[in-house]
């Protein structure tokens, strides 16, 4: 159960980061507003850092 929760956490967070970047790029192309891009990039960066820590811990 906990293992499933961890897998869901990684997958949902990654999907959210990718969706945020994709819609952010669309918004940027339409209006020149970059407001969503830092959010997507920060989420991706946090996920990369967390994933590295989790790999080291053997998850």
């Amino acid at each position, binding site marked *: 159960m*906990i293992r499933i*929760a*961890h897998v869901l*956490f*990684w997958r949902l*967070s990654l999907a*959210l*980061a990718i*969706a*945020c970047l994709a*819609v*952010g790029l*669309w*918004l940027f192309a*339409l*209006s020149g*507003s970059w*407001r*969503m891009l830092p*959010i*997507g990039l*920060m*989420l991706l960066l*946090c*996920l990369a*850092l*967390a994933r590295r*820590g*989790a*790999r*080291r*811990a*053997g*998850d």
Partner: protein
Amino acid sequence: MASLGLIVLTLPLFALAALLALPARRLRAVPPGVSLLLFTAILGTGLLALLALGDAVQSLVLYPARLQERYLGAVQAGPLRLRGYSEFGFQDPGREWTYALAPETLQRLRARCRPDPRLQDYCRLGGYSDDDGGTDLRLNRGRLEIIDYAM
């Protein structure tokens, strides 16, 4: 919601993320090797991303579709035909959407358009205006433009 709205909401969302992270650790939902601070950052940024996504869908898809339904009777151009979006004004903020129309849709809309004799290739499709704001739908050089001041 403008960029300022997202900045203002950052702190409360991260506080909420910190409140959620504590019981998550107790329930062992935090993956091993991930610090509580990093887990909180992921949760907070995730909440912010969800909010920004919802706002983008509302601004780029749902709201202009509602305006088209109200003033044109049906959605004539979907999000894939959207070619421009802008937010402007400070005390009287407004938004503008520009759509590239399919040839048959353009023909259909031109038939019900009220042309302006002073302007070439420009005509008004509908809208309203009052003290609180207004909405204007028009065809300009073959593109559908929607301007909305009622925010």
